């Protein structure tokens, strides 16, 4: 059977699984809480897979092999080590936010922040940061998978039509099944991502003569890939440090991740989930290094899209190529679904009213967000990993705001002001393409350090009750 045949067969199987998940999750007359938070009873296994699937997206599948190929082994520090730091933070932050959520109730991070700071603008700022930085991230992933489908089925549909089809599948699925269905889809995606990446890595390693040969060839032909800062000088200490801060802050500042911490069935389950995600991250990122190094040996210097199409599709037996396309579709759908759905949850947490009416508004809002994402996916560029990193850095500016709200009963409002100003500044810097470095310091790193100093000072100097 050809690559197209396998892709259609496996794609139908995947769609059948999605339909099963949506049907299993659909309930007549369910409450908004059931729709948005799946009853807040997530166990360890589903918790690990849904957290990992929301975290590892098309950017892991497509972007990381290319990152290893282009920038070398520093990519491991950039993502795997930063993820290990993040899971440590999850244990501390997750415990604290669950305690705070028990005291205040939880409908979403924006609503919680508005409540803690007793200022509605703080909640809207939180929502705005998620919207501004998540929409391009969702869109670039949809574009990535649309490009991949267009190369698998040339002349069948245009890029915009593929994007529209993916958005429609995603939308229909989350509107029918809600959060519970997304969690089931995440579980399918988490497992398939792991298995498929290892199969691809095995084939790539075998094609260059095995493990030893792969690394020997890389060391001989591209020694600059074997250390930092890499051939293009990307992995400076500043870049790696700023990336680590941005990634560590993800559980606090990206609502789809924070929500997953709160809806775990217990704090003990959350802790086990964090440790397992740490292991999962290493096991899922390592095969991308092998695929990337294979690319460095075989496809050095070719454009990213060509390397991805060859290494993940054309160099593979047709059934693995088909698995690859569907694995990528699954990775893209679960992450983007989680992010779109989280935007709906965040908006809902800022609204008041009747439960059924709120649910209706949330669904319409998700539809609106999907339309914006579709438009972005048609007009934007292909820099998958770097755009994802911008998204992490942008939302991370809200870190001090969230951390203060979780750690203090009455956090100083000025911390919310600092975070919001930093987030807007960073957004403007991306929009107007300001220089990346100011006086030799990266803008994102400088803003993180400044925020940390100002927020710590505000927390230490705050008036305390007598």
């Amino acid at each position: 059977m050809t690559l197209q045949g396998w892709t259609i067969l496996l794609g139908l199987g995947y769609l059948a699984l999605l339909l099963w998940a949506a049907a299993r999750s659909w309930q007549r007359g369910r409450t908004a809480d059931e729709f948005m938070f799946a009853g807040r009873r997530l166990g360890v296994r589903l918790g690990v897979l849904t957290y990992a699937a929301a975290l590892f997206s098309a950017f892991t599948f497509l972007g990381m092999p290319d990152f290893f190929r282009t920038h070398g082994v520093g990519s491991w520090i950039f993502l795997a080590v930063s993820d290990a730091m993040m899971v440590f933070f999850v244990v501390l932050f997750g415990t604290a936010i669950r305690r705070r959520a028990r005291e205040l109730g939880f409908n979403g991070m924006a609503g919680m922040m508005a409540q803690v700071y007793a200022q509605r603008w703080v909640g809207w700022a939180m929502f705005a940061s998620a919207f501004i930085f998540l929409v391009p991230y969702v869109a670039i992933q949809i574009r990535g998978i649309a490009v991949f489908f267009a190369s698998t089925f040339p002349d069948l549909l245009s890029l915009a039509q593929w994007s529209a089809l993916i958005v429609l599948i995603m939308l229909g699925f989350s509107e029918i099944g809600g959060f519970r269905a997304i969690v089931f889809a995440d579980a399918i995606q988490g497992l398939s991502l792991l298995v498929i990446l290892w199969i691809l890595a095995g084939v790539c390693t075998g094609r260059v003569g095995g493990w030893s040969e792969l690394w020997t060839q890389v060391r001989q032909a591209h020694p600059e890939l074997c250390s930092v800062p890499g051939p293009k000088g990307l992995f400076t200490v500043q870049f790696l440090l700023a990336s680590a801060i941005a990634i560590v802050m993800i559980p606090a500042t990206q609502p789809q991740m924070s929500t997953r911490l709160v809806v775990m069935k217990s704090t003990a389950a959350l802790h086990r989930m964090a440790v397992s995600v740490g292991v999962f991250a290493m096991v899922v990122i390592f095969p991308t290094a092998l695929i990337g190094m294979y690319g460095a040996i075989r496809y050095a210097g070719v454009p990213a899209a060509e390397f991805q199409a060859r290494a993940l599709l054309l160099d593979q037996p047709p059934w693995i190529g088909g698995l690859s396309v569907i694995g990528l579709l699954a990775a893209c759908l679960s992450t983007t679904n989680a992010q779109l759905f989280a935007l709906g949850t965040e908006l809902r947490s800022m609204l008041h009213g009747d439960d059924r009416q709120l649910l209706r508004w949330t669904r319409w809002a998700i539809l609106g967000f999907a339309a914006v994402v579709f438009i972005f996916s048609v007009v934007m560029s292909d820099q998958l990993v770097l755009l994802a990193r911008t998204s992490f850095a942008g939302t991370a500016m809200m870190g001090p705001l969230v951390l203060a709200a979780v750690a203090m009963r009455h956090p100083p409002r000025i911390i919310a002001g600092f975070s919001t100003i930093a987030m807007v500044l960073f957004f403007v810097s991306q929009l107007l393409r300001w220089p990346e470095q100011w006086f030799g310091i990266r803008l994102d790193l400088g803003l993180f350090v400044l925020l940390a100093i100002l927020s710590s000072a505000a927390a230490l100097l705050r008036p305390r009750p007598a």
Partner: protein
Amino acid sequence: MANSSNPSALRAVIWAAIVVSVLTFTPLVIPPSQCEPVLLGLPRTLWAGMLVAIVLVGLTALAARLIGTDDSGNPS
């Protein structure tokens, strides 16, 4: 920290994680332009980075055991 059965041990684990994280960004883990020594074929930065990630996940498991769960009812 208040709910931990052993706050000083938890504090030590947190400090260990901070120290390991800081060391990651020094030449101890990421020496510029240096591939050697190679371990099982892997260049220095990669195997040292893997070691750091494993240590951090181990510290996460330790912190999870020490932090205490205090689950008097789920968040609603």
